[in-house]
């Protein structure tokens, strides 16, 4: 009813709209974020607290273990194996050269293409950080210390090892005069039969049943070569009379030749007169030598090079003693014992790498506007593939680049090679298969479908075995191919089949209107596919494709089953083949996991950047 309206029922807004105000403080900024995301409700708050506690507990346990007692030496003592497998020691410089090339190219790319290339460059940098570390590989590696326990109950063991010419080895004898001293200095380093025995003695010492000071232990140490001839020590005497010299002493030698040596340990009964009196406890610490799990293991590992190991009655082998560090060390010790050795090895190569990278970056930045520079960098990448392969493989009979057969390539080098070749080769193949499967020609369509479905229906491991054995059988030309190259073929075919399905998914989401528009403009089918359909389809499935490449990267570890030692395979061989590293499986596999994670993460980071990068994501339309 018209008459009922009052003045308050009419309104006209002022000409100017009011200025925008800031939102309330509790709904923006970090505080607002916390409230909105972590503590939005009671159940959310409880979940947050519980999960945070779990994560903190896990992190704390892991960190304290890795700082206080983990022995990362298993990796940095074996850097050469981990990075390059059995690649010839003398030829390691080639890997350094390759690493240098890649670093320079990455630097240039970062300079030229800026942000987009950053993900790629992070990936390359990480790989390099590990690859570049190679230099020292040929250098001598201080091995973990070995302990020989001398005790009254049994005659001491001799100790067999391999040494190289010019290598310095030292033996320290350390009498145990009281329980605490022994506990502090030694107990932490040993877990094993010897340690168990020692802890029983230590308990007796503490209980007062055993007085270490009462013992008069005298021992003669001699270092014998393969023929049993004693060597003369550079420092220290060959006899340790621990009763007379409770501080102990040391012997050191510079080895005259490559080969087997025996540290002979004898109780010296001439010092204390009667055999019964000459008893007591001591550790003899052996440093800087290569040791073995057993006589057989020694023969197996080194007989080719140095002949059979000397047969010694009561030889101590590493198997009988496990050298796991079980104590706790301080953070300072962690750095000095575990971190510094690694850094001292990689600091120089890192420096050179960084310098190269920086130079590349500067040149790239200065030249980014020049077409020539951009073309050169692109060409450099394209050329780098064959060049790198030639440098790494070399030629039969060449002096500067002697052949290094791919069968000895291993470690991270092989992993990355398999992955890169797999990705680069399977990409065009996969796209072709996907297009073929949508072809209007039935013969092509069915062939592609048959291939895709067959490969997808078979586990990768089967395909690798086939690549190793069945393929050469059918196709004799292939039997001459290196095993590593056959594996690359297997991995490529496998990856291509999955890639084809991913790409097909992308092709399906392209609206038909796009193809019609292209046709209406006069583009022929090939142009319409390459210029209009594929760019959009591929962009849409970048996450799926990268995900698949990441699993390809991880799946390369399966080539171990056909006798190639990539990253996982070689590390497995280190920790199972060399007795002294057997206790360090945890550390070794954690490092591998970290390497895999970092590279995989870098790959998915690249994918995210590619997706977000300029060229107009499809989702906008």
């Amino acid at each position, binding site marked *: 009813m018209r008459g009922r309206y009052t003045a308050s029922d009419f309104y006209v807004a002022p000409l100017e709209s009011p200025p925008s105000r800031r939102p309330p403080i509790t709904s923006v900024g970090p505080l607002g974020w916390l409230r909105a995301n972590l503590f939005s409700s009671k159940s959310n708050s409880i979940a947050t607290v519980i999960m945070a506690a779990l994560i903190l507990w896990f992190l704390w346990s892991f960190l304290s273990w890795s700082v206080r007692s983990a022995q990362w030496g298993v990796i940095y003592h074996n850097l050469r194996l981990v990075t390059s497998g059995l690649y010839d020691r003398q030829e390691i410089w080639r890997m350094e050269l390759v690493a240098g090339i890649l670093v320079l190219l990455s630097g240039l790319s970062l300079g030229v293409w800026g942000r987009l290339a950053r993900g790629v460059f992070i990936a390359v940098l990480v790989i390099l950080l590990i690859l570049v570390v190679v230099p020292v590989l040929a250098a001598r590696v201080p091995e973990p210390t070995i302990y020989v326990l001398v005790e009254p109950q049994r005659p001491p063991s001799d100790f067999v090892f391999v040494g190289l010419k010019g290598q310095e080895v030292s033996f320290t004898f350390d009498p145990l005069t009281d329980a605490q001293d022994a506990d502090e200095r030694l107990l932490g380093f040993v877990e094993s039969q010897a340690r168990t025995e020692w802890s029983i003695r230590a308990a007796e010492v503490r209980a007062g049943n055993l007085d270490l000071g009462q013992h008069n232990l005298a021992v003669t140490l001699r270092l014998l070569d393969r023929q049993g001839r004693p060597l003369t020590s550079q420092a220290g005497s060959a006899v340790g009379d621990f009763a007379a010299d409770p501080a102990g002493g040391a012997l050191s030698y510079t080895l005259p030749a490559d080969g087997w040596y025996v540290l002979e340990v004898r109780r010296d009964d001439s010092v204390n007169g009667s055999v019964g009196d000459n008893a007591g406890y001591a550790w003899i610490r052996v440093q800087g030598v290569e040791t073995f799990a057993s006589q057989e293991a020694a023969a197996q590992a080194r007989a080719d090079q140095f002949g059979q190991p000397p047969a010694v009655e009561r030889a101590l082998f590493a198997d009988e003693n496990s050298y796991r560090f079980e104590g706790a060390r301080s953070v300072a010790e962690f750095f000095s014992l575990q971190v510094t050795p690694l850094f001292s090895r990689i600091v120089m190569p890192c420096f050179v790498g960084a310098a190269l990278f920086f130079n590349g970056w500067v040149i790239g930045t200065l030249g980014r506007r020049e077409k020539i520079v951009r073309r050169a960098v692109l060409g450099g990448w394209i050329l780098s593939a064959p060049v790198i392969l030639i440098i790494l493989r070399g030629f039969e009979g060449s002096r500067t680049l002697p052949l290094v057969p791919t069968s000895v390539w291993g470690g991270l080098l092989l992993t990355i090679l398999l992955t890169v070749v797999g990705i680069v080769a399977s990409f065009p193949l996969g796209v072709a298969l996907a297009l073929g499967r949508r072809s209007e020609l039935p013969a092509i369509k069915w062939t592609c479908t048959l291939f895709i479905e067959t490969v997808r229906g078979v586990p990768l491991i089967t395909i690798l075995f086939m690549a190793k054995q069945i393929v050469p059988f059918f196709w004799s030309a292939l039997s001459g191919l290196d095993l590593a190259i056959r594996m690359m073929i297997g991995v490529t075919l496998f990856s291509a089949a999955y890639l084809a399905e991913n790409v097909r998914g992308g092709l399906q989401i392209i609206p038909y209107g796009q193809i*019609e*528009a292209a*046709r209406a*403009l*006069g*583009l022929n089918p090939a142009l319409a596919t390459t210029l209009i359909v594929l760019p959009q389809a591929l*962009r849409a499935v970048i996450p799926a494709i990268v995900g698949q490449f990441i699993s390809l990267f991880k799946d390369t570890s399966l080539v171990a089953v056909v006798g190639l030692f990539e990253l996982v395979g070689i590390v497995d061989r280190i920790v199972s083949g060399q007795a002294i590293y057997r206790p360090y499986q945890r550390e070794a596999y954690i490092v591998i996991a970290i390497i895999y994670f970092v590279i995989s993460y870098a790959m998915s980071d690249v994918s995210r950047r590619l997706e977000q990068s300029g060229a107009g994501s499809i989702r906008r339309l």
Partner: protein
Amino acid sequence: MAETKSSEPIISCRGVNKWFGNFHVLKDVDLDVMPQEVVVIIGPSGSGKSTFIRCINRLEEHQEGQIIVDGIELSHDVRNIAAIRSEIGMVFQQFNLFPHLTVLDNIALAPRYVRRQPRRTAEETALQLLERVGIPEQARKYPGQLSGGQQQRVAIARALAMQPKIMLFDEPTSALDPEMIKEVLDVMKQLAQSGMTMLVVTHEMGFAREVADRIVLFDEGRIVEMGTPEHFFTNPQHERTKLFLSQIL
């Protein structure tokens, strides 16, 4: 008949029939379009308007009858199709711009790859066309960043870049918000004034009345009535036409 004299039709359709499966979608369509003529096609939804104009650049194939465009008969000969398509520009209801390319690249693409023009030439032409449709400042953007009206104008520019003799429009303003319709129609009017041969499917009666030389009414796959705008709006003959006009006006 390599060149067309202005007295001869540039598009000539004789007894065109088409079926989708068993469904008879075009029935004996006869239509001649003269050079520089603007023909507006109207008709209820599903009457075959789109199918008909898509036959003209062979996005659809007719099964019976004859379509001759600029002296070339449409057949299965692939070279003929390519030749025809580069003579005819087409603008779609849904724009169908290429979302992964910038506006400039959308327009320059076909000249570069079909006409093999150097990049620079193609881009200069593209910029001129953008100027002509009134959005030169959007050249570096992606289609997804433009409004509907702007996108449709880019689509027109893209079709013009191939320098076609004929332009086909399939409901170019139907997917647009009301406030953007005018800017697209203005471009089309200007195009008509410049002498372009145009075949336009639209429901914009104002445009038809003002710009069309002839109006064609489709119903159930056949042409029901054909004539000048005055004829249509003042003196329609067929019952179907009267009914249709009464619903739309």
